[in-house]
């Protein structure tokens, strides 16, 4: 099996699906000839032709709206929003349309589309290339929200998303496109090739939506994370010496409640980590779910380690980014309580 980084794995998912299903096509700003500013659609136009992987006008609303129309027709478009920070002009079409069409037509029409978009910080992208808007989608009934944390999952989840008959917003943690990032910005980042999850089969396989992965089993404390924060949490666990169980959620909606509850019932403690601002971030929902389902097992308050409630500030990249230090401290505090 070839070692793939996340970009290659995502590209491979698209390649596999376009080869398999003529109804799959891909488009977005710079996604055609050029292959996307992060090169995820690289080579697809050349291989599948101009009408199967193409450039689109700079119009996130138009991109998503036309994808909905194509989905209703029976295609499975995979569209790219260049940065998650630019998804808002298309928000209405997602919230008012994609999410509601199956319901309001009593199942007659549905929208099997995938909206891919790079998200998250750690790249000195400033406030408009660093955002993590996932909770704005988890609130919307009818949408599935998926975030992979490594090449193997990225490919398997993207294939699942494309094959899924519901609209999926697929967030790609751009900080770890090229290598897992522990959050230690002063240390070299290993390429994916050195990580077991870069063993990516060339052909078709799926990682199911709605299933989390326990990426580090442990007994003392549960960490709930996704995307880049999975790697930060693993680093924090290793460095703190706490026997943390780190769960990579992979799908935020529908979330894998069983895996979460089982773990927190075992550990009695929970730390939630995400890059998005704290207030009404997805961590709030996780916190609510954990306390609703595990109240009598909790031995300490659930902690949230998150981005701050400010725009993402360019010069303060490493102050804003929830790195292993902040995660580790929260883990320690949570362990020390009582």
């Amino acid at each position: 099996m070839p070692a793939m980084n996340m970009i290659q794995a995502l590209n491979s998912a698209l390649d596999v699906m376009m080869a398999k299903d003529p109804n799959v096509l891909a488009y977005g700003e710079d996604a055609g000839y050029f292959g996307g500013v992060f090169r995820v659609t690289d080579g697809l136009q050349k291989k599948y032709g101009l009408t199967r992987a193409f450039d689109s006008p700079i119009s996130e609303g138009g991109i998503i709206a036309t994808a909905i129309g194509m989905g209703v027709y029976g295609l499975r478009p995979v569209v790219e929003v260049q940065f998650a920070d630019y998804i808002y002009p298309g928000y209405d079409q997602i919230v008012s349309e994609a999410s509601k069409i199956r319901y309001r037509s009593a199942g007659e029409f549905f929208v099997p589309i995938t909206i891919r978009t790079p998200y998250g910080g750690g790249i000195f992208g400033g406030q408009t290339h660093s955002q993590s808007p996932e909770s704005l989608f988890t609130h919307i009934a009818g949408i599935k929200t998926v975030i992979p944390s490594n090449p193997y999952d990225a490919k398997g989840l993207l294939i699942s998303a494309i094959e899924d008959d519901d609209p999926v917003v697929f967030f790609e943690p751009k900080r770890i496109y090229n290598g897992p990032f522990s959050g230690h910005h002063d240390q070299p980042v290993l390429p994916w090739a050195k990580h077991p999850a870069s063993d990516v089969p060339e052909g078709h396989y799926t990682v199911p939506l709605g299933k989390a992965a326990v990426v580090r089993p442990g007994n003392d404390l549960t960490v709930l994370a996704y995307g880049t924060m999975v790697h930060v949490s693993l680093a924090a666990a290793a460095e703190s010496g706490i026997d943390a169980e780190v769960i990579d959620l992979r799908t935020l909606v529908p979330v894998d409640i069983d895996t979460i509850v089982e773990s927190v019932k075992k550990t009695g403690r929970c730390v939630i980590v995400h890059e998005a601002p704290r207030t009404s971030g997805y961590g709030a929902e996780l916190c609510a779910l954990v306390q609703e389902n595990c109240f009598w097992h909790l031995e300490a308050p659930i902690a949230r380690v998150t981005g701050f409630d400010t725009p993402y500030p360019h010069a303060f990249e490493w102050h804003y980014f929830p790195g292993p230090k902040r995660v580790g401290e929260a883990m320690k505090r949570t362990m020390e309580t009582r």
Partner: protein
Amino acid sequence: MKNRIPLSLRVPEPKCRPGDKPDFSALKLPEAGSVPRPEISAHARELLEYPFTLIRVLDAKGRAVGPWNPKLEPETLRRGLKHMLLVRVYDDRMYRAQRQGKTSFYMKSTGEEAVAIAAAYALERDDMCFPSYRQQGLLIARGYPLIDMMNQVYSNVKDPVKGRQLPIMYSSKEYNFFTISGNLGTQFPQAVGWAMASAYKGDDRIAASWIGDGTTAEGDFHYAMTFASVYRAPVILNVVNNQWAISCFQGIAGGNEATFASKAIGYGLPGLRVDGNDFLAVYAATQWAAARARANFGATMIELYTYRAEAHSTSDDPSRYRPADEAKAWPLGDPVERLKQHLIAIGEWSEEQHQAALAEAQEQVRAANKEAEAVGVLGQGNIPSVKTMFEDVYKDMPWHLRRQRQETGV
């Protein structure tokens, strides 16, 4: 350098407000039959005049004149007239049902029946329609059962959309009628996407969509026009200019500054401006645009110039913002009357036949309504099972919805 006149803000106003005498004297209408009919292959740049004129076929005497005359069979015209009558009678009945407390809401298309019926006639049955809430005529022309429409309006146990949508938000895959959205304009670029998909697949079905004059101000209008132009999508983008958007006259959407059809120019699309109360003109323009799309020449925008003869919806009271008798003063008249006059003029119809057709439409509506009311009206509780409320959010019900359903005890 600076011109020291103080600036001032201009807010457009309609000519007439309640109490004023309706005044359409400024309206310049080209003669029926005076606009040439271009080749369907014409380049948009050759069609720059079309957005500024008005395609009309029926003249003041009810004669069909000029190159846009689609020369339909009398039988087709009679069917069209009957369908328009049926829409009107249906609208009246459902409006009354709302007033009687049998449902929460209703919207009529009175005065705009030709827009939907003639278009439906000019399209193929398997062309896909992405309508707004005022093209119920499309369903009726395609023979969708009235009873199903009524069940939808009453949100009863037989409502095809299971009580989930506001009245009039019909949906029918079988009739190629896309689920209506309460959000204005969103269907316009979706129709373009559908048309792109049809082209992508080498299919031969085209798409058509309808929005109102007011809705042209939404971003979705711009997205639709842009994508239709760039990808040469086989789609007809209709703007129904009924001159009002609830209480706002068309000037608030920019209609005083340029015609809506002229917006097509900036996208390199043909923009046809059509008398929307002229069944034959609407048919002919739609037919032209459909033929153009089918021949891979791409999209057409059509402005259908009409007048919203009644209230915006059952929640509206137009006497608060426009002269009560403006509809009557509207120079392009009433689509039903005009087609009737034409059929009589060509000796294919009579006042008696018309009365009989009207009575038949009324009977059809009465019978269907009786049946629908027997199934149930809103508020009586004869609605779909509560557990269906949790279905179809996703293809498969996820755990959290299952749990919420269980909490509800259903």
